[in-house]
């Protein structure tokens, strides 16, 4: 069993948990993910790793309620336990392979959408700790749904906040912010990384293309085992079939067939929605 050390709701729909998983905590790297199962009978749910502490033997995960299984995850409290936590899975971020010299000249811009801020955090932190220039753009629908604002501020040179409704920071989308930074403020980046909803990563990639920026995206595809066995996570990258769980989750955004990936991601949506309890949206704006 994997005990939950602490839990907090970051927004009404998003929770953060610190979970005991000693082996995982000592082997995790930025860019990787893990799979949890709440109990016997539960689904295997892939989640990004948003922090890890080898000394304490814990990992931090952030979950957004979108279906029945993620509701069950968010219903757990500190002191409860997951029946299973497996990982780390996937390939660590590309920069983990870079030499110190290679890292020195880099200027990273991270684009985080919604809960995508959670997996951006360990990447920005890793680079920032090594003195690499890091800017982060976080986007959310509205200020109340923004997560990791304060945490992120501590691990980057510049933090830019955007909201769709203008309730905080830049009034507009993350793509607009990226254009503004590059075109109006003359920022020069060597690498862009976008993590968030598939549709956001698609448009962030299109913007990066326009700006002539390399782009890495982290694909949150369907998965069953997460170890390369089932092929549910297959995506088309550069015209080839790739398995996100063992060859990803990070890929060159310019080569990803996002439309196919989005369609495949929604394969079980009707099944999921049938079991999804009603989430009240009254008073939460749009």
């Amino acid at each position: 069993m994997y005990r939950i050390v602490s839990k907090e709701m970051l927004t009404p729909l998003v929770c953060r948990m610190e979970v005991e998983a000693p082996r995982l905590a000592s082997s995790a790297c930025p860019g990787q993910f893990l799979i949890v199962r709440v109990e016997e009978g539960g689904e295997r749910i892939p989640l990004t790793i948003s922090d890890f502490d080898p000394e304490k033997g814990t990992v931090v995960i952030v979950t957004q309620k979108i279906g029945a299984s993620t509701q069950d995850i968010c219903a757990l409290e500190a002191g409860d336990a997951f029946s299973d936590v497996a990982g780390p899975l996937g390939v660590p971020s590309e920069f983990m392979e870079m030499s110190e010299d290679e890292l020195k000249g880099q200027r990273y811009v991270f684009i985080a959408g919604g809960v995508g801020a959670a997996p951006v955090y360990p990447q920005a932190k890793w680079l920032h700790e090594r003195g690499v220039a890091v800017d982060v753009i976080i986007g959310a629908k509205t200020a109340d749904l923004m997560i990791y604002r304060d945490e992120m501020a501590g691990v980057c040179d510049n933090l830019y906040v955007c909201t769709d409704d203008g309730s905080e920071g830049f009034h507009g989308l993350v793509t607009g912010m990226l254009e503004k930074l590059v075109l109006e403020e003359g920022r020069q980046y060597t690498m862009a990384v976008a993590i968030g909803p598939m549709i956001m990563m698609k448009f962030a990639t299109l913007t990066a293309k326009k700006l002539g920026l390399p782009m890495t995206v982290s694909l949150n595809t369907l998965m069953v085992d997460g170890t390369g066995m089932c092929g549910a996570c297959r995506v088309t990258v550069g015209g080839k079939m790739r398995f996100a769980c063992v060859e990803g989750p990070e890929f060159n955004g310019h080569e990803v067939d996002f439309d196919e990936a989005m369609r495949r991601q929604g394969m079980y949506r009707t099944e999921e929605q049938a079991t999804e309890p009603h989430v009240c949206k009254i008073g939460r704006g749009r």
Partner: protein
Amino acid sequence: MAANRIPRVQARAQEPAVRARNFEEVSYGFSIEEAQLEASRCLHCKNPRCVGACPVNVNIPGFIGYVAAGDFASAAAVIAEDSSLPAVCGRVCPQETQCEGSCILGVKGEPVSIGNLERFVADWNRENGVVKPSAARPNGHKVAIIGSGPSGLACAYDLAKLGYDVTVFEALHKAGGVLEYGIPEFRLPKEKVVASEIATVKELGVKIETNVVAGRTVTIDSLLDKEGFSAVFVGSGAGLPRFMGIPGENFNGVFSANEFLTRNNLMKAYREDYMTPIHTGDKVVVVGGGNVAMDAARTALRLGADTTIVYRRTEAELPARREEIHHAMEEGVRFMMLTNPVEVIGDEKGWVRGIRCIRMDLGEPDESGRRSPVPVQGSEFEIETDSVIMALGTSPNPLIARTTSGLDTNRRGCIVADENGVTSRKGVFAGGDAVTGAATVILAMGAGRKAAAAIHEYISGK
């Protein structure tokens, strides 16, 4: 010879029309009377060919003699000397090409039903709990095993009996490997058979750590260098599912057999009390002709789908066990032979609506000796379907080879190991599908046993 005149006893089975709608085990196995009658048919050859034909060399005439005499506990003890998973093997081994295939009675008539007898003894022993294997005194040496499938369990069993301190690392949340995720409940009951055989291995002192992905959570290097293991056996299984490389394979509703079976077997999607979803629609087409194709088709049928198997050669070349083909046909799976898909067709929302196929003819024999199928020009046609399941085998998972220094792989990506499981890396042994590519449970068990012997020799000779 009186023994010859008794016809081979057939095990009773659920009626096809009934079992096609449930996930209960198809075969009921032998009763005590049936088992003793069948056991009496064995000629007890001086040079029993069946023993040599068994990958783990079970003393077959030995245990059958005890069954005939009604001493089932002694029969179980004889099997336990060589096999860690008798209730599994009695059910899923291809006996027709191994022990039963070499039974002398089969030359003129029907061979002894060795598989059903093994199953009977194992089931009897489980229900009556008489014979438990025992471990030697601990010898203080630690051995790590990667993967809790058939090869890993067989290796662990033999090493534990020799007194080794064995830890098995399993990537999934449940031990058993292909026995859990691959082979369906109706052929191999999970709680009754798989879980209890694994419990027997654990009773020998074998520890099983689940949720540990070798190459990620731990590496073979770290197990040897930091965790004090003297040797590692890699039985990590087959790996990544193959697809055909035809257009439309990523439409919604196209699955690998691995995905479809894992959802249903490991994740128990067929049960109301499990949350993992599974999709069939009204019609399912399964592509392939092996045991995995049969398992997928019979699973789809039980989930309520009208199911068709398409295979590019003829029925005679189907690589699946005859028994599985026969069962699938009886249950109502449709077989379209000499048919090969050329394209999956999707609707406007990106869901499968059909599969375009081409008729095939058998041409000259290929390197496998089978006549290779050639397409018949202009014979393309469409089959309407809601799902397509690709059962085309697997290619090796590169994770372990990539993260282990000095471990050689071959051109296909399989780990290179000799017949004793010895690899290019000192202290690292391998066997099962990770070495051979997709094969059978019993061949993997055989490889696990041989590696156990080689590990024992390696450590005791240090």
